[in-house]
């Protein structure tokens, strides 16, 4: 999922803390990496209280409204879903595994039908059994306007999803979801979607007992199917207390460990304060983690000088790329030579420095992030080296008839997120100057920026954007940005390069039919390489996340799916 996935909503909500903090790159589910299971010595034991210190409050807690992929972090402690992400470090953690279901789904009809069987003995926090009808209901309610916020795939994929208005308005439900019995659920899709198992890890696939549904107020007292239940949710999601759900059974849940007895979530904190508290670790902060705050460059500089602290940093990777986006409908970006010239001119070293330095950002020349499961295939069509190749750029400009230089405008957000922020824009500006391109910066407030770059009509010619994976697969990474049929003229358009190439479109459809993830990944990689030749984007860097955790925290797991520390694995005893 695209740039906005996390960012827009969460960041919008969190923008302030980000802005305020100014510091650490922010929030959002990031995924990660290759952290070794870290933390304090000794085998993890049950008990104790885990404190989660976060920047963004958990404003949304209704399973229908959460965008978070893989079931999210705190939400996945309360909501179990049909499938879930494998709770393991690094690339292993990008695998999808069964959760409520017995497997990751049985495809049928060229991956247009997906059938799931529920495990036995699944119970809600009140002891009542979880049925397939509850999952159907959970999916259906996410269509209600009152509960907007989820990802668009249900609407796009399910037959009848585009017109369905949710169970409150249309009592009879969605016919494309069938529950032949209490344990079975079948989804019927309009087209082939080999990635369905990944999507089924979203909280929309969590069971909601119809009798207990209170609509917009459900988030206040959601009925837990996971290892914890919500005992307090105050201050608009800023303060949450979770306690053990006695009716959750470890036997049916292989992924979640649920070591702590109690989890206290405190959010609305500034990044500086969070990291400072984690590093000081006094009182309950010793058993604290954060699920949305990274070490900023400043803290990193400080932490690397302190062995004790350095041992408490986990590294995470999340499938995300920051890039320069061209709008070929705007001159002079209609000319491939100009786009190529800019690709050559870019100095990725200063861009990386502006993004927090080489420990927090890795330069990239591919659109797909540097992760195998997404289909990463290395290529560098316009080799610029570390510092850019202004000479080559000038040459191309000359060929394009701009021997006297060129004046262009670069649009960016003024939010201090180190992804689309002014520092990066300035770095780009400085690099292009070498190639004789004068760049005028247009910094927009985040809302304005967001609206403009995704508007078909108002889209600027050149802007900094970033795109993140909804799940670790090439499909959701490439399709919205390059599928010609996804050009949206009257809504949010993500195909900013306006690429409508039948060959590309066909290939996307073809890959979507593949249910073997590895095979699909390879084809996505090849597609990315192919599209890259058109220079519709200039990939800049992939962010790297450094997560600090408290000194009593054990069993730290950071998967490349989310890039954040998995609270369901953490132990404090």
């Amino acid at each position, binding site marked *: 999922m695209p740039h906005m996935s996390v960012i827009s909503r969460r960041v919008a909500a969190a923008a302030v803390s980000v802005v305020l903090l100014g510091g650490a790159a922010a929030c959002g589910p990031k995924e990660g990496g290759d952290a070794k299971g870290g933390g304090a010595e000794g085998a993890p034991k049950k008990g104790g209280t885990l404190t989660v210190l976060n920047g963004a409050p958990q404003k949304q807690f209704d399973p229908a409204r959460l965008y978070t992929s893989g079931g999210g972090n705190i939400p996945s402690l309360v909501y179990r879903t049909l499938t879930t992400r494998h709770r393991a470090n690094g690339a292993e953690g990008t695998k999808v595994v069964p959760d409520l279901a017995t497997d990751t789904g049985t495809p049928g009809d060229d991956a247009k039908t997906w059938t799931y069987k529920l495990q036995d003995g699944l119970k809600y926090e009140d002891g009542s059994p979880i049925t397939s009808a509850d999952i159907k209901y959970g999916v259906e309610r996410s269509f209600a306007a*009152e509960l907007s916020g989820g990802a668009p795939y249900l609407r796009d994929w399910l037959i009848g999803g585009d017109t369905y208005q949710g169970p409150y308005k249309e009592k009879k439900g969605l016919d494309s979801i069938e529950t032949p019995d209490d344990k079975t659920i079948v989804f019927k899709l309009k087209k082939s979607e080999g990635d369905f198992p990944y999507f089924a890890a979203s909280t929309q696939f969590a069971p909601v007992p119809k009798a207990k549904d*209170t609509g917009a107020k459900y988030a206040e007292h959601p009925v837990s199917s996971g290892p914890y239940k919500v005992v307090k949710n105050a201050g608009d999601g800023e303060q949450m207390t979770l306690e053990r759900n006695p009716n959750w059974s470890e036997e049916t849940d292989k992924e979640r460990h649920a070591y702590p007895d109690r989890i206290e979530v*405190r959010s*609305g904190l500034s990044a500086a304060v969070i990291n400072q508290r984690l590093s000081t670790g006094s009182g309950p902060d010793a058993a604290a983690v954060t699920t949305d705050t990274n070490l900023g460059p400043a803290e990193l500089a400080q932490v690397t000088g302190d062995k004790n602290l350095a041992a408490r940093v986990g590294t995470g990777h999340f499938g995300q790329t920051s890039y320069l986006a061209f709008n070929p409908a705007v001159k002079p970006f209609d000319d491939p030579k100009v786009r190529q010239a800019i690709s050559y001119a870019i100095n990725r070293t200063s861009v990386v420095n502006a993004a927090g330095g080489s420990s927090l950002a890795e330069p990239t020349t591919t659109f797909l992030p540097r992760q195998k499961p997404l289909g990463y295939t290395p290529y560098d069509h316009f080799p610029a080296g570390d510092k850019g190749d202004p000479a080559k750029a000038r040459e191309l400009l000359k060929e394009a008839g701009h021997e006297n230089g060129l004046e262009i405008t670069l649009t960016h957000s003024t939010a201090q997120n180190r992804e689309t922020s002014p520092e990066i824009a300035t770095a780009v500006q400085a690099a292009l100057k070498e190639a004789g391109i004068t760049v005028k910066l247009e910094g927009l407030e985040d809302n304005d920026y967001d*609206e403009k770059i995704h508007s078909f009509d108002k889209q600027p010619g050149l802007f900094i954007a970033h795109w993140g994976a909804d799940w670790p697969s090439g499909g959701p990474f490439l399709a919205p940005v390059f599928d010609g049929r996804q050009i949206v003229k009257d809504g*949010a358009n993500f195909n900013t390069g306006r690429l409508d190439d039948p060959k590309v479109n066909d290939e996307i459809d073809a890959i979507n039919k593949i249910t073997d993830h590895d095979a699909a990944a390879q084809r996505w990689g090849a597609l990315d390489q192919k599209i890259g030749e058109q220079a519709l984007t200039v990939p800049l860097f992939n962010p790297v996340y450094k997560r600090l955790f408290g000194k009593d925290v054990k069993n730290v797991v950071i998967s490349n799916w989310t890039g954040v520390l998995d609270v369901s694995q953490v132990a404090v005893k």
Partner: protein
Amino acid sequence: MTGYLLRRAAGALAVLLVLSVVVYATFYIAPGDPARLACGPRCNPEQIAQVRAQLSLGDPVYVQYWHFLQGIVAGHDYSTGTALLHCDAPCFGLSYQNNQQVTDMLIERLPATASLAVGAMAVSLLLGTVTGLLSALRRGGVTERVLTWLTLAGTATPVFISGLALLMLFCAYLAWLPFPSYVPLTEDPEQWAWNLLLPWAALGLLESAKYARLTRSSLLETLAEDHIRTFRAYGVAERKLVTRHALRGAVAPVISLSAADFGSMFGGAVLTEMMFGLPGIGALLVHATVTLDLPVVVAVVMVTGTAVVLANIVADVLYAAADRRVALR
């Protein structure tokens, strides 16, 4: 007096009404679509349209505003999807972001803001008046010089600098205090105070400078008044002149100013709340502003506006009560 209060109350209402109109208008023309923001990152146009309808954002702005007013006076019904609920008057509507009743959100957050305001006010008043008194009484001495410069420095230090310095010093380097994390008074009074100590100090220090300066100048002014001369001419000792005769008159404007400031602290301590992660309405407001959550913005502005307006009335009444020479008109 009653008539005076009634007149002021009517004025206050008018002020708040205008304020709400201004807020509505400003946000109406602001770029960004609240429906899109509420809908989620990848909503398609139909979904956005649904959300827009659900939030009644399709209505003309004056109709929306009218409904807002109705909600305040009479409350209104709303659907959660599964049930029809009533939002009691004064109802500020539902948050675009998560459909919560804004009134509840406010009530949840007011205690933190009130705690901050009360404590910071106490700190600043105490520190300010004592400093002002000392510097007025030790005129020309070293004490005065030191205090004067201290208060000047206080005025010149924005809370995001002093707050940071305090945090670093007391929580990080010395580790004498916990990193502030709001604990409700009702839950644990000791922790409440302990956690709020730094925010109080940061905000209080900043504000105290103002009171110190006011106390000083107003005390010097009062000491120059004729009635002080009278008692001096009757052999009343200097110390007593100050404590019995000058102080009261001198403190009147300070009390009055502090009452007015107390009101603005309800909405004005945004930076402090954010700096220390206090779940107050200032922080709520900034979040809501960024997400164009109009009902929340309007509600917070109304609440803080009410606080300011009320505080101003209280300030005037206090001033008149302290200084009988002032008539309330």
